Structure formats: structure tokens, C-alpha cells
């Protein structure tokens, strides 16, 4: 029986680059992806700081005649999927039966494009709404269009657990492979939240960092002066395979997904359960699922969005699970911002790079650690340490807790 999944492909579109090496260098060196909105961006004057990914012309991933109303989240997902499959050297139909490939690509969907069409509807009435709206914005369309683009005909779905959706997509992929329902799963998440309505929704909920004249200092996970998250946009897609299938086709394996756990706070729609008990239970389930103990984890990439309540609850959860065996911990969101559901995939890719390079990225902007948070922080610079096992946490509005465990490919 398959107990683990081989990661053979990685595709990223992030505020700090599109190649895994580039992204990993940025988080290790503290090269920030945070900035004031560019002159011509719709967020100019709306928010002080955000994390912008590179522009991608829609007609580079979708035929021009279909591309006009396709939301940026779907465009980014398709670019990441294209890069991940190229990295895996996998061509559906040539290397694998199309019915033995699954897709789990998630995200909240094309809210920006939906909001734009809602404005047109109120101005122009019925005639203002494009017939192309639904295939351009539905939350399943990143997965469906990935299947269309690459001829994938097996199971497809998208996970709707907000900022936990990326991590959960990886977990779902592992479950599909373990169940023998596919040989390959293309899994990931894409989020494009950088438009005024959604930014104001976060801002009015008092979730955004503010008052930092230097935008690169605004995201401060676990720091005493942290005062909110910085929104970012990103897509991340991984190609996971049954290890035997990957071996048989001679694929190069970046790392293994060893296990995962998911729980729910059942507490509040947005505030995390303050004692972190459900998040802790999720981490423990992930450890058991991977056949590991807390002492086996060499690095923990925290969710750490830099909100007051979120960081405090996660720290309690980590402390309760790991105690004296706590591994080095960091949140890479000080550099990337919070890329919502895509964070779980981008951070899994960072974890994979940490396993490969024996280098653990620090928490950027952690100048003055919150004294009420008792973690084994990596600060100031990357920590050289051979790592065999990495845990990556993702938590979402709604109280969704997901922990994914990655292992060195040679383990």
C-alpha cells in the first residue's frame, strides 16, 4: 500500500518569484515581496502595502477568445500547473492514462471579476453581464481548466477551506493516491485577493497590518509589535505521484508527502480557538498519519500570519505538541505576505527546498519576539541544519486547521 506520495513537480507564482530556487533564496535572505501598490494598480490609495505577484497575460495560458473574463486566480493557477507538470516531465496521455490523473486545485474563486461584473450589472442592467462570467470565476474552474488544458480525465475537485485550502489540497491528493484512485494528482491553490472590495473586507475587519512607513517591515510574524497580516497573491501547484509510479517512469523526486491531519476549531467564524487545542490535535493527527513522533520533526513552517490572535493561538498549539522537542520554527510570511489558501502550497515548496538544501529560512521582521510566545524561533538569518522532516501548518477562516508533513526524498 502507498503510504506516502512523491513530489515530482513544483510550479509557483509568488510575490518573491516563480522558480522554487528564487523563492527559497528570497525567504532565506529576507528579500521582501512586500511593497506599496504600483502607480497603475487598483489598490493605489486603497492600502499601504501588499505582496504582488508578477503579471501574467491571460492569453499566454488560455486561448485569447476565451481569456477575457477569466479571473487572475485561474490564470495564475494554470501557469503554476503548467510549470509543475513541466518540472515533473509528465505529459498526460503519453506518460500516464488520463483517467489515472486527478486534479485538486483550490481557491476562493474569481471574486474580483465577479465584483467587476456586479458593478457592470448595476450600471447597465442584464446586458452588462457576460455569458463568460461563470467559467471565469467559479471556484472549481482552476481545477476544471487545469483538466481541460492538460487533458486530465480522472477525479477533480477544489477545496473550500479558505486559507487552509492549499494545505488541504495536498492532503486530499495524498488520500487519493493512498486509496489507489489515481497514479498522479495535480494539487494546489491559487488566490488573487488584491482588489479593493476584498482588501477593504480584511481592512474593515481590522486584520491588516498598518502604520509601517517601510512596507517591507509590515508583516511581522510572532513579533511583539505585529499588528496584522499583509495580503498577497500567489499560486502554487505540486505534482504528486504514487512512489512506485514515479520510480517506474524514472521521475526525479523532490521530496515525499508523508502525512497530514485536519481538524476544526468549532469556535468562531474568524477568531481562532485561543488555546490552539484543535490546531494542536491536527498536528498530532498528521504525526500519527506519517508514523512519526514530535521529536522526528526537524523544521516547522508555521502559518504565522502576524495577526495578534492567530500567532498566539498557533504558538500555544505548537508548544503543546512539541514541548521540549520543539524543532526550529519560522513563518516565511514576513517576506511573502499572506497568500491566503495558496500559502499552504508555496510554504510546502519552501519546506521541500529546506529539506533539499539543509537550510531553514528565518522569520523576517522578528526583531522583538513577543514574550508571551514560546517558540524555537529562527531569526535574522537562515539556519544551516540537515533536515529530514518538515511540518507545514495552514489555518483558515472558519476554524480549519491543516498540517502537512514532508520528508526528504531519500528518507
Amino acid at each position, binding site marked *: 500500500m502507498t503510504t506516502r506520495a512523491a513530489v515530482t513537480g513544483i510550479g509557483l507564482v509568488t510575490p518573491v518569484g516563480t522558480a522554487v530556487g528564487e523563492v527559497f533564496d528570497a525567504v532565506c535572505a529576507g528579500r521582501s515581496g512586500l511593497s506599496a501598490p504600483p502607480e497603475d494598480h487598483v489598490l493605489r490609495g486603497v492600502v499601504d502595502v501588499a505582496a504582488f505577484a508578477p503579471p501574467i497575460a491571460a*492569453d499566454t495560458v488560455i486561448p485569447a*477568445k476565451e481569456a477575457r473574463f477569466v479571473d487572475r486566480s485561474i490564470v495564475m493557477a494554470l501557469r503554476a500547473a503548467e510549470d509543475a507538470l513541466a518540472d515533473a516531465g509528465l505529459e498526460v496521455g503519453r506518460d500516464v492514462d488520463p483517467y489515472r490523473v486527478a486534479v485538486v486545485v483550490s481557491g476562493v474563486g474569481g471574486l474580483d471579476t465577479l465584483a467587476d461584473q456586479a458593478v457592470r450589472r448595476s450600471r447597465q442592467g442584464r446586458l452588462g453581464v457576460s455569458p*463568460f462570467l461563470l467559467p471565469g470565476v467559479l471556484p472549481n474552474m482552476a481545477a476544471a481548466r487545469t483538466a481541460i488544458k492538460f487533458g486530465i480525465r480522472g477525479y477533480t475537485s477544489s477545496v473550500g477551506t479558505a486559507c487552509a485550502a492549499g494545505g488541504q489540497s495536498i492532503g486530499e491528493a495524498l488520500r487519493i493516491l493512498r486509496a489507489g484512485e489515481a497514479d498522479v494528482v495535480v494539487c494546489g491553490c491559487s488566490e488573487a485577493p488584491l482588489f479593493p472590495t476584498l482588501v477593504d473586507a480584511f481592512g474593515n475587519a481590522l486584520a491588516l497590518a498598518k502604520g509601517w512607513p517601510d512596507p517591507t517591515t509590515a508583516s511581522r510574524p510572532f513579533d511583539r509589535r505585529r499588528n496584522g497580516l499583509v495580503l498577497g497573491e500567489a499560486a502554487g501547484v505540486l505534482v504528486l505521484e504514487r512512489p512506485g509510479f514515479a520510480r517506474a517512469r524514472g521521475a526525479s523526486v523532490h521530496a515525499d508527502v508523508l502525512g497530514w491531519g485536519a481538524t476544526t476549531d468549532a469556535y468562531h467564524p474568524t477568531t481562532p480557538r485561543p488555546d490552539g487545542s484543535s490546531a494542536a490535535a491536527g498536528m498530532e493527527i498528521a504525526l500519527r498519519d506519517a508514523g512519526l513522533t514530535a521529536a522526528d520533526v526537524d523544521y516547522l513552517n508555521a502559518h504565522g500570519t502576524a495577526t495578534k490572535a492567530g500567532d498566539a493561538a498557533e504558538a500555544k498549539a505548537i508548544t503543546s505538541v512539541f514541548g521540549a522537542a520543539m524543532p526550529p520554527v519560522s513563518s516565511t510570511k514576513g517576506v511573502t505576505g499572506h497568500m491566503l489558501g495558496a500559502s499552504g502550497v508555496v510554504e510546502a515548496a519552501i519546506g521541500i527546498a529546506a529539506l533539499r538544501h539543509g537550510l531553514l529560512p528565518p522569520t523576517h521582521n522578528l526583531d522583538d519576539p513577543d514574550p508571551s510566545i514560546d517558540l524555537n524561533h529562527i531569526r535574522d538569518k537562515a539556519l544551516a541544519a540537515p533536515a529530514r522532516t518538515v511540518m507545514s501548518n495552514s489555518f483558515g477562516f472558519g476554524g480549519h486547521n491543516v498540517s502537512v508533513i514532508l520528508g526528504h526524498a531519500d528518507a
Partner: protein
Amino acid sequence: MTAEIRDFLLESLTEMKYPTDEIDEDTVLGPAGADLESLALAELALRVEDRYGVRFEADEADAFAGLTVGEFCAVVAQRITASAAT
């Protein structure tokens, strides 16, 4: 009238990112010619409705696929005339 509709059609197709270089009176709008698929035909119907104040049902828009450019312009002109008469 049909000449104006034809210009409007070509303008619409360009905005919809369809190439118009090889389109003439006898080009079929659907897959056999200009290659408009179902949602594109719906958008074309919507544009005509917006421009000329006429109304098409869903099955009428689907049926555009089988019309040539010339036939399409004639159908729209006829609809405009009928609409003006009521």
C-alpha cells in the same frame, strides 16, 4: 442596414478576440467557419440586443452557429424591422 450590421459584427468579433481577416459574406459563424462556440454566440446575441434593442432567445443564439455572415445580417435586419413595427 445589413452593411451597418456587418460592420458591427466584425467590430464585435474583433473585441471578442476572433480573427476577422478571412471572414466574408459566406463564412459560417460556428465551428465550420468563424469558430464561435456557445458562449461566444450568446455574447454576440447580447451585443446585438444591446446595440439594436431587439431580443433573442437562447435557442436562437445557438442557431447562429449555422448561419453565414450574410444570413446573420439579414436575420438581424429582419428582427429590427419587426421590432420597429410592433
